[in-house]
């Protein structure tokens, strides 16, 4: 039943899935602007943007049409609903990662000079970022509402912008920031010396966080009241 429901839900999301794909281009533009090795981060950055936009649109649509009360009025348990959402999210993430890989490959060919991506690493990072974002978004949506998902997206963008703005301004000379940058540089060096340990730590954390996000989503939905 879960597989069949996921297939039908995916069918009803095809329009949004296609519409959001337009964000591939700004995603790639951002990564090219990031510096001489922009292609290294192109896939995960693009997938993150695509997934965030997809989630914003689908949760907004769901909220407007009261999609969750509709689902909860049907003979489906909250756990089954979350399993359906997780399957759909995984499929959407795979599709967007594939699109991001193809678009990056085309860019590498036609716009050289921004380094070369580590293809397997980019694919894994894209999938990881996408799946983690999906699970956290659903956890927030099921616990709160679509507005909270939108607010969180804006806060995350703002939070991500702060370090890059700080590094490129006079603030970087402040002792606290210099100390932070030194620590970051040390961590980067350690990561470069221990790539397999880093891969295990990051991978395990991402898997655990994704699983915890979906488990929390199931708990939140089963306790949610539709006033």
């Amino acid at each position, binding site marked *: 039943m879960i597989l069949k429901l996921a297939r039908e839900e995916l069918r009803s999301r095809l329009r949004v899935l296609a519409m959001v794909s337009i964000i591939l281009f700004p995603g790639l533009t951002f990564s090219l602007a990031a510096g001489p090795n922009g292609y290294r981060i192109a896939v995960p950055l693009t997938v993150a943007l695509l997934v965030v936009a997809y989630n914003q649109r689908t949760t907004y*649509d769901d909220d407007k049409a009261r999609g969750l009360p509709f689902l909860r009025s049907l003979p489906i348990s909250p756990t089954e609903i979350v399993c359906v959402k997780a399957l759909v999210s995984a499929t959407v993430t795979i599709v967007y990662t594939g699109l991001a890989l193809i678009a990056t490959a085309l860019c590498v060919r036609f716009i050289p000079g921004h380094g070369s991506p580590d293809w397997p690493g980019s694919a894994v990072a894209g999938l990881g970022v996408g799946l983690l974002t999906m699970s956290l978004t659903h956890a927030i949506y099921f616990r709160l509402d679509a507005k909270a998902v939108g607010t969180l997206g804006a806060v995350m963008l703002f939070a991500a912008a702060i370090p890059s703005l700080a590094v490129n301004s006079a603030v970087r000379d402040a002792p606290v920031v210099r100390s932070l940058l030194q620590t970051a540089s040390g961590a980067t060096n350690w990561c470069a010396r221990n790539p397999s340990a880093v891969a295990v730590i990051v991978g395990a954390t991402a898997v655990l966080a994704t699983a915890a996000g979906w488990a929390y989503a199931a708990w939140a939905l089963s306790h949610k009241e539709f006033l």
Partner: protein
Amino acid sequence: MPDSILTLDGVTRHFPGFTLDRISFVLRPGSIMGLLGPNGAGKTTTIKLILNLIHPDSGSIRVFGLDNRRHEIEIKRQIGYVGENALLPPDGTARWLGRYLAICFPSWDDCLYRRYLARFEVPADKPARALSKGTRTKLALAAAMAHRPRLLILDEPTSGLDPVVRHEVLNAIREVAADDGRSVLFSTHIVSDAEAAADTVTVIRDGRVLVSEGKDELLSRWRRAAGESPLSLEQIFLNLVGGSAAPSVEAVDR
């Protein structure tokens, strides 16, 4: 077959500024109950409690003789529900909805669903967001009836509809009850709809049940008190909720 399809016994739920206070009523098999009340009386909250979309602070709700929280899935398989704003996914077409619900309901009858769509003139391939409110309500009704539910629950199904669509919806409600002892609970603030379709009336105001009994008994009791004058259900309703000068509630109770 149990002697009640739905029993609410002392159901209470507190909200800031509003309390649904010890709601009790019984819906018999084959009966159509109109849940009447002014806006904000607690009709939608009562329906959400029955569907376990909200949880009560105290009291019990039994559907088909089963506890509505412990046997939620089993109960929902036998319930058809149309929400206040005919909840449907915005990109879902009638055809898509039929496929989706066929997965959820083991007793789904696709031929019946298509018959309802044809009868209500609902286009099969137009997304829900492109449908008018009336057509969306008819689609939701067709979807709610196509698995032949033992209990159909409708929240303000005729609100905001034109007279033609209202007539179609009320006819469909009557047909469901005429079919093999199925029961219907529909909330409304349009008294004429309850008068036209319901055989049992529950009036609710400020979160309290004022009266719950057969429509004919209610009418004859009030008519006796009013000296056999031709009182309508609307006059009785207005009197109960405090908006008219027909016989007082106390006079009828005596």
